[in-house]
């Protein structure tokens, strides 16, 4: 064997060894990204709803992405995968986050203030936001995260044990674990618990209509009011989200809208004015609108935080455009978290951060002018 041959053999041998040694390499070349033999408890795998079989394979009909995953591959959301001509979900009963929070933590200001939410979040998301603050959960399948095993009936039990009146699906995108979400919501309704989702609203109309009757409230996060930005920042589309908002309104689900203001991406005055006008003229004027401060996260690290001035300016603009309740969230020291009566401007709920200092609402109305304040209230 000459030197050249020796080198050739050494290089090819090393490559074979490298391929064999590293599971990532194996995955990339030959193995399916998902298989039943990779340690996922079959308990968390269910046949998915909302998909159709096409000549090309299965097609997901849950969100507007309409993925057509190849055999044993995941869709964009990382939770739904194809096997033997059927679509399955791997996000059933295995949340990675479980917590007890006040509603304000999830941008819910007009929904039973002072009560507690039992919140769960399953890995996966159907958007790919450059600024995601749960990126290590949202961009992977539940197969790859450390999860808790909590089936719907256990959620109900635990929520009651912890004195929570509401079950919430938040922290990550609830739509992608649709089957788990729907079963839990149905069960919660049967147990006199209230239900909430905090979502990006990226869902098709049919599954949304199936879900909405079991929902009391939804917080929908609008990423921007510009299709091009939606695509570049989040890899999604704006129109289906706006259509979804109309469905929530039609089906009378209590709706609060949040908007994370990211400098240089979605903080243009013109677009914001357009958005506020669209909301107030589209029947959403009584839905609380939350402008949230951006903090550098995930891939958007080379960008500044949103200034207090910008947020307060947008709040003022939204009020001028006819929105009744506009808040600034995640900005310590601001007074724009208080609820005022849109008619007499009396302060009704005084907040600091996510804590309520005083609540003078009387039967969901302003004690001064008796104006009914939109929302779901406990007093």
């Amino acid at each position, binding site marked *: 064997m000459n030197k*050249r041959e020796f*080198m*050739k053999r050494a*290089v090819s041998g090393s*490559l074979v060894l*490298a*391929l064999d040694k*590293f599971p*990532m*390499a194996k995955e*990339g*070349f030959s193995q399916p990204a998902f298989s039943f033999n990779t340690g996922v408890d079959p308990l968390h795998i269910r046949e998915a709803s909302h998909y159709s079989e096409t*000549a*090309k394979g299965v097609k997901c009909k849950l969100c507007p992405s309409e993925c057509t995953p190849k055999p044993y591959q995941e869709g964009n959301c990382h939770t739904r995968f194809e096997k033997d001509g059927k679509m399955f979900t791997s996000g059933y009963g295995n949340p*990675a*986050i479980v*917590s*007890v*929070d*006040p509603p304000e933590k999830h941008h819910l200001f007009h929904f039973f203030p002072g009560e507690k939410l039992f919140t769960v979040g399953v890995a996966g998301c159907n958007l790919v936001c*450059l600024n995601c*603050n*749960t*990126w*290590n*959960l949202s*961009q*992977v399948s539940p197969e790859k*995260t*450390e999860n808790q095993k909590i089936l719907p009936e256990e959620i109900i039990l635990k929520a009651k044990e912890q004195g929570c009146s509401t079950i919430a699906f938040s*922290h990550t995108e609830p739509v992608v674990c649709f089957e788990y979400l729907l079963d839990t919501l149905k069960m919660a309704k049967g147990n006199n618990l209230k239900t909430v989702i905090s979502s990006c609203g990226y869902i098709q109309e049919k599954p949304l209509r199936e879900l909405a009757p079991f929902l009391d409230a939804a917080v929908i996060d609008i990423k921007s009011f510009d*299709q091009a930005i939606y*695509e*570049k*920042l989040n890899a999604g589309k704006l129109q289906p989200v706006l259509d979804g908002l109309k469905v929530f309104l039609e089906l009378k689900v209590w709706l609060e809208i949040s908007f994370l203001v990211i*400098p*240089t*991406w979605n*903080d243009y005055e013109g677009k914001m004015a357009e958005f506020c006008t669209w909301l107030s003229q589209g029947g959403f004027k009584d839905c609380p609108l939350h402008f949230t401060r951006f*903090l*550098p996260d*995930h*891939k*958007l*690290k*080379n*960008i*500044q*935080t949103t*200034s*207090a*001035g*910008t947020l307060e*300016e947008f709040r003022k603009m939204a009020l001028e455009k006819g929105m009744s309740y506009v808040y600034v969230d995640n900005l*310590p*020291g601001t007074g724009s978290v208080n609820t005022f009566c849109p008619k007499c401007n009396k302060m009704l709920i005084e907040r*600091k*951060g*996510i*804590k309520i200092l005083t609540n003078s609402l009387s039967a969901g109305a302003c004690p001064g002018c008796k104006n009914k304040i939109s929302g779901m209230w406990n007093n």
Partner: protein
Amino acid sequence: MEENKSYPVILIGIVVLVFYLATYILSRAGLFRKVVHRKFWNILLLVSFSVCGVLGIFLTFQVNYKWKIPYLEEITELHVDFGISLFIIAFFHIFWHLNYFRKLIRAGFDSHESESSGEIVAARKPEKKYADLTSPRNFKPESHGVLFFLRKKFFYPVLILGFSTACVQIILLREFLSVFYGNEMIVGIILANWMLLCGLGAWLGRSSGRIKNKSSFLAVLHVLLAVLPVITLFLLAFLRNIIFPPGCMADLFQVWFFSFLLLFPFCIVSGLAFTVFSVMLSEKYSSDFISAVYSLEAAGSLIGGLLLNLCLIYFLKPFQDLYLLLLINFLASVFLCFKNQSKISRYIIPFSVLCALVYPFTDLDSVTKKLLYRDQEVTFSKDTPFGNLVVTRNGEQTNFFENGLLLFSSGNISSNEEAVHFAMVQHPAPEDVLLISGGISGMFAELFKYPVKRVDYVESNPWLVETAKKFVIQKIPEEVNLVSLDARMFVKSTDHSYDVVLINLPEPSTTGINRYYTNEFFLALKRVMKPGSILSTQLPSTVNYLSEEAKKINAVLYNTLNKNFLNVLIIPGETNHFLASDSALSPRVVEKLELKNIPSEYVRYYLIDEQIQERSEYIMENIKGYNIINKDFEPISSFLQFDYWMSQFRTNYWILIMVAALILGMIMLRFDSLSFGLFAGGFAGSSIEIVLVFGYQVIYGFVYQMLGILIAVFMAGLAAGSLWGNRLFPLASNRRFAFLLFVLAMAVLICPVALEFLNRGEQNIFLAHSVFFVILFLAGIITGTLFSVACCLRKGSIASASGVNYSADLVGAAIGAIVFAALLIPAKGIWFSCFFTVFFTLVVALINFVIGLKNKK
């Protein structure tokens, strides 16, 4: 293709244009014939046409006949990509044959045959043979002294080449780091690209014997060396927010590709110039001048590096530095034109004068900053030794960026409160506080809510404090004693002791920052902490979820703190705050604040004790099982932080690594034992440089000027070694080459021994510095001598010897920079890394020794 996804027209356009210009320039320069250039593009045209056409046919079958072709949808994108490149290449093609088309229109089809046949005949003409391609090489020792070089003005352009290359490398590297995330891997990738491309340039120059008028050619290269850095730096800022989403970090592959494209023109020209200079000077003085040119280039680099690091960086902005380089290179070019009386001077001189006159009227520094910081008013920008400092305003908010990363914004109450209150509230009466970095962001207002009597505020970057004072983020109270010093140095030298130590440094993403997260540093801190005092440091937040990568990095810091303190508590917030003390610690910070009646806008109203406690317990429970600790010379935290950072991109890097290994393997297949030796020499040389610079930072802290001097000492050794090595010409043999490699391996082995010795206890500062200088100088001398001896041993023409040797040396240094600095030291520590280099160098030395024995027989 998704509905809204756009096709990469600009990217493909730029790539094709850059490569077209490269092959065009090289063909015009005579490195290969014009017909080769055309053949190359004809082949590319054929490939583009074929791929585009075949995929088009497949698409037709699918649409018309409903064929089910697997993966067709994915490769349809290729159809369009190749279509775009087809269009662009066809465009050049039309220009080549413009005359033909013109004649076609004017005179009909008759001219076609004669023209095309003429071209074929021309292509088959026998190649002209040049004498220097085969001539034996001479060596005249009398023409290799320092005085000889000083007397010969032709050598000054070589010094300028080294000077410019070193300065441009430093400037561009700093700018790349302020545009991308600056961890060691990114630095390694950019440096590796730099050296590989310079190596490629030198290798391409191995045919430079064919160039008739080398002096004119070099004059043109100097013009390019003057102009290209300006274009590169401008394109870096201009394309940053076009190619990448604004404010978005790029992943490793993107950084590699982007830096490769941008550095390509300058580095190729720089490498090419080295070889052409070697050939031209060797021809002119009828002696082998490869290692002399190597030595002069190193001397130029030494002067450039010192001047820029010790002087220019304090006074000039990047484009002003480049203007200086532009003038120097124009002078070199004009000098070469005059000496040669070449016709090209008619173009070069007016062009140089015009550029030199116009340039000062363009404020490119401001323009590029505006391009980089979109929608913000850039109110201040300064290049400091610690990196580029930029202050911007949006509305009433002031933002401070260092190397492109947001340091802090004014009014960021949440991070200031977390950084102060989580730790301060644990102490019954904190009076003496040591604050390491971050104070000017607004922390003093929070600190003085406690009965604090003295704050020692250590900020290693004095420009940061000065700038913050200018923009009045916060007035620094009188009780604050501001110290502009490396924190490790301060902790070593202070006599004070403290109740609370607050560390507000970025995560340990580099081995430099890792120094503040090690066992040795915490041990030193404990010496200045009073009994029952509290230490606080931080890592990125895992408040929502603790991934596998995050677990490891949190576990290592926890273990390292736990080795020195009885209690360690993690409080997750916007960052994970690690509190360490020998007294009890409590996660119920809200309750404690309320009890002490400390006013707060964030902690008391946004956080809930029960949630903090639950999350804290969850994190601490889940990080059990990793028992590693972080040490000065085994900086595992920086490796884990890199792993965590990489996990954001979810790219399968093993494929990339294997492709890189394959390419490297293919390059190595072409290596003979000498090239292997030079590769190992480059690798070992760069390993010594890196390990000593790293060790110096660990022991004496970050002293920017000193880093410049350390590298300069190595370069001086390199220059002296290659010059002195020439004297060995008559004695050169494979066995001596092997011996030099052996000595180099021993020099690598000395490094960790010396560092461990110097890091133990107080050593005489003069002696300690001498150790660094001596090892670096010796390593430089051996590497330089190795190059000279290899040049003596290499058979063949000057051009080929120079190109092949220089490229092998640079490839070794490039691989050394990336593997040693970014992987081996962080993952395995200095001992393993040095042993690895020693083993590799010794194996190569042995191969050369055996060959030497054979030759003797």
